[in-house]
């Protein structure tokens, strides 16, 4: 993969347009290949229409602003993206979290830490008494500016579970996907997290890493790769972490651009479809998670959010949460959903089957 330097939006790429992306992926035939509709696959498994189960995870995207421009980013995040959540929307989220009964709040971005109200928001969520607060930290943000250097202490103070992308245990693959020098900075940041106790069994401070393929192929077995990561990171850098999540790249946004530009799209879709796993389909994260965008709109998942597919429900904004049961809806699916149902499955928490 070559490294992107600007977001699709600032490059005025047609892939920045969610409607264009949906046209590309909804087209069931590419280069003479027929791609079976995802709805049909779900029907065969008795899962269509896909319905939510108990709401457990409240995932909130604090904005598209990021210090990195990763080649595969489904958010199309970067330094040139200015869309971030306001404190007013965060206040609406706090009310909704309390009403929802969700046990986990999952904060993502962009780099969520770049939102000026990030620390205030974390402190307020802490007061709600949820079981778990996750921050999806890209690691390099900790070193990006002096004001972020104390993030490991801040995370520790609030018992945050840190989930961080490290697409490989070497610099070649990591930098190809996330930018030159990212691996080295990520290693430094991981050491800083380890220093305050993250990743140590007895500390209770959880540090999980995320692998996603740096190319048009599926992830390896999660448990096998976790063992390899642990061995390599410990022996080469003395780094400890808790679990590795393997995540499949979905064919949207920058990864879709990559697939189309390299001629890999059709074969990649074939691969995802052939690897469809009904068990993974039954366990997709959109059944127990809702995703809130930076502007307060509600989506079935982070991917639907980036495709601007708001929930199929009369109340679509977080300000209206609780007025009507959000779980009483059909989940919106499309061809990109094959990414979550391939092989061992994929979710923000890794494999699902």
């Amino acid at each position, binding site marked *: 993969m070559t490294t992107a330097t600007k977001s699709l939006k600032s490059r005025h790429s047609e892939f920045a347009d969610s409607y264009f992306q949906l046209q590309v992926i909804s087209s069931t035939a590419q280069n003479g290949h027929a791609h079976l509709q995802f709805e049909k696959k779900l029907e065969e498994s008795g899962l269509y229409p896909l319905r939510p189960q108990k709401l457990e995870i409240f995932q909130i995207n604090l904005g598209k602003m990021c210090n990195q421009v990763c080649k595969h980013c489904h958010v199309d995040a970067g330094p040139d993206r200015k869309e971030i959540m306001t404190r007013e929307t965060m206040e609406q989220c706090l009310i909704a979290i309390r009403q929802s009964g969700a046990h986990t709040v999952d904060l993502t971005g962009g780099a969520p830490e770049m939102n000026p109200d990030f620390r205030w928001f974390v402190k307020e969520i802490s007061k709600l008494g949820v079981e778990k607060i996750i921050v999806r930290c890209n690691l390099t943000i900790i070193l990006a500016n002096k004001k972020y250097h104390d993030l490991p202490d801040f995370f520790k103070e609030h018992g945050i579970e840190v989930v961080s992308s490290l697409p490989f245990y070497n610099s070649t693959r990591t930098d190809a996907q996330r930018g030159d020098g990212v691996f080295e900075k990520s290693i430094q940041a991981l050491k800083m997290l380890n220093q305050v106790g993250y990743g140590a069994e007895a500390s209770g401070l959880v540090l999980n890493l995320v692998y996603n393929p740096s190319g048009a*192929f599926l992830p390896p*077995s999660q448990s*096998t790769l976790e063992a390899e990561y642990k061995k390599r990171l410990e022996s080469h850098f003395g780094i400890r972490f808790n679990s590795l999540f393997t995540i499949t790249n979905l064919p949207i946004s920058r990864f879709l651009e990559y697939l189309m530009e390299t001629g890999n799209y059709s074969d990649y879709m074939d691969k995802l479809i052939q690897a469809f796993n009904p068990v993974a389909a039954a366990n997709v994260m959109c059944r127990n998670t809702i995703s809130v965008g930076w502007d307060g709109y509600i989506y079935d998942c982070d991917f639907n959010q980036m495709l601007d597919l708001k929930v199929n429900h009369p109340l679509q904004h977080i300000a209206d949460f609780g007025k009507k049961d959000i779980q009483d809806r059909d989940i919106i699916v499309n061809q990109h959903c094959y990414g979550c149902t391939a092989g061992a499955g994929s979710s923000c928490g890794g494999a699902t089957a």
Partner: protein
Amino acid sequence: MKTYYNPEDLKKFSNVGEFEPNLAKKFFDYYGDVFKDGALTAREKSLIALAVAHTVQCPYCIDAYTVDTLEKGCDEAQLMEAVHVAVAIRGGASLVHSVQMMNKVKEVAM
């Protein structure tokens, strides 16, 4: 364009059962079992397959096992080292025959 090796044909591999289904089924069942985790891991077997693919110079197998090794979590250095194992054995197999050449030289030459 007509070509002896068409990448699209790899996807049709399972169609070989069309002319002889029983033997094809036995082969694919056996093939599936061979690559399961066993005394060797599926990852180790995939790297062996990649090396052998280069030895038998099968374009389909090279494509298939390049992707398969990546999907088993291998990196570029591991893939290339596996190929060099094949190269070393293949080259060594030629070179070791030079002993026979040397024997013959010593037999016939003063």
